[in-house]
């Protein structure tokens, strides 16, 4: 009989806590969304599976000595994984559309208002009993509005590690939901005539401009915002490898093998933060609500800025492209293209939307740098 009870004690059945079961269900939900609904599967599969593993009783994946514990400490606590991802994103990004029309940077800047408005909103939530966000927590939550996974994880790991799981899940879920969140806002803020505006073809951009561009971005960041140089520096490094044309092998590795390997580990370790004591709180609900607000506000301010630029330029700019300023590359640009085509079947806005889209990546990295410098 003794042996039986020892055997019973060594099964997970005897040790399941309700919270763990709920979190395993959350992990399964993420797997379902990724596999069936195709929502950001590259990230939600590792995150969902990490959530399953970390909630297994007795296995101790996320306790000191466990696999996910080490991966988290090595990759996310140090900030290494998000930065490596950012390097890969830099190697995948073509800045041609932005260099051809640099004023699009203003749209990328305007859309960052979503971040700072949400910061305000997160602090205001403290008025409701049950919420207790510090300025650091609020900044980490607000960066969800940057619609940039690695930036959000980097900032959250520096400012609010205990909220990282919820922030990462919110950031990636909303990025997957861009095609649902953005079109109603885009249609509400523009008139059908504005949506029909066709834009002039972009000028071709020389290789030399593309090589000098990341160096110029890096120089400006070094001079004015050193706290953003980890993000911007890795991004520019990746982009320079892509454009310089002499390290094809390194560039290919950065945008394929390396980013894939890091994505696996990043996803697993984010999933390991989905433990019931940290995720099943009222604060998670607040984070999910604030993330949606951040996205919506960023889309709206980008659109309004584009509307203003459209008026000032005498109707040469289609205001829809402002929505792409929230980054979420390349999903947001595709949504702009789709909505543009609905209004005018001959209007292909994809290349024009790529400009504000990549400007949004730079904008959110700069915003992250500002938050790190002022709050961190």
């Amino acid at each position, binding site marked *: 009989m003794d042996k039986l009870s020892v055997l019973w004690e060594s099964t997970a059945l005897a040790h399941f806590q309700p919270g763990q079961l709920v979190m395993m269900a959350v992990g399964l939900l993420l797997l379902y969304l990724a596999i069936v609904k195709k929502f950001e599967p590259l990230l939600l599969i590792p995150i969902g599976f990490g959530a399953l593993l970390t909630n297994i009783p007795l296995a101790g994946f996320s306790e000191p000595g466990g696999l996910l514990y080490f991966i988290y400490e090595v990759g996310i606590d140090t900030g290494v994984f998000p930065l490596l991802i950012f390097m890969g994103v830099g190697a995948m990004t073509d800045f041609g559309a932005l260099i051809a029309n640099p004023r699009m940077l203003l749209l990328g800047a305007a859309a960052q208002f979503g971040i700072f408005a949400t910061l305000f909103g997160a602090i205001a939530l403290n008025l409701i009993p049950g919420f207790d966000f510090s*300025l650091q927590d609020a900044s980490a939550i607000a960066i969800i509005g940057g619609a940039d996974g690695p930036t959000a994880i980097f900032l959250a790991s520096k400012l609010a590690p205990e909220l990282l799981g919820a922030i990462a899940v919110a950031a990636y879920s909303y990025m997957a939901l861009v095609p649902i969140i953005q079109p109603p806002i885009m249609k509400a803020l523009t008139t059908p005539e504005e949506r029909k505006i066709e834009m002039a073809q972009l000028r071709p951009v020389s*290789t030399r401009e593309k090589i000098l561009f990341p160096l110029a971005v890096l120089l400006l960041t070094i001079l004015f915002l050193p706290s953003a140089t980890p993000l911007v520096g890795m991004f520019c490094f990746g982009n320079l490898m892509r454009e310089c044309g002499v390290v094809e092998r390194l560039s290919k590795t950065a945008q394929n093998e390396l980013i894939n390997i890091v994505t696996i580990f990043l996803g697993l370790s984010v999933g390991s933060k989905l433990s019931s004591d940290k995720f099943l709180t009222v604060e998670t609900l607040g984070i999910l609500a604030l993330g949606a607000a951040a996205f919506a506000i960023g889309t709206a301010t980008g659109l309004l800025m584009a509307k203003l630029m459209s008026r000032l330029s005498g109707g040469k700019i289609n205001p829809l492209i402002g929505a792409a300023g929230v980054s979420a590359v390349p999903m947001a640009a595709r949504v702009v293209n789709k909505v543009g085509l609905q209004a005018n079947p001959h209007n292909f806005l994809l290349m024009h939307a790529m400009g504000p889209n990549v*400007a949004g990546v730079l904008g959110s990295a700069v915003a992250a740098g500002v938050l790190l410098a002022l709050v961190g």
Partner: protein
Amino acid sequence: MDANAVTSLLAEAGTLMIVGMVFVFTFLTLLIGGIDVIARFCRRFPGEQESLDTPDIAAPRPQRNENEHDPRIIAAISAAVQTHRKSRQRRLTKE
């Protein structure tokens, strides 16, 4: 959290919002200037290869006249269209 603490935090968040947005705009506006300088530099000192590859870098496309199209480009496009049509026909007949 009591209301006073929240109010002071809100004031701080408000300042952050203004400072942050001003900084993001200033930074990216500076970058617009930077890109313009690079573009002007590249136009003034076009590299040897580039001036051969893309001779019309400074001339924006829309300003081109309709009947000024390079016959080589037209030839290339019609050849591409032909191949595309042929391959489509082949695929259709296969199916």
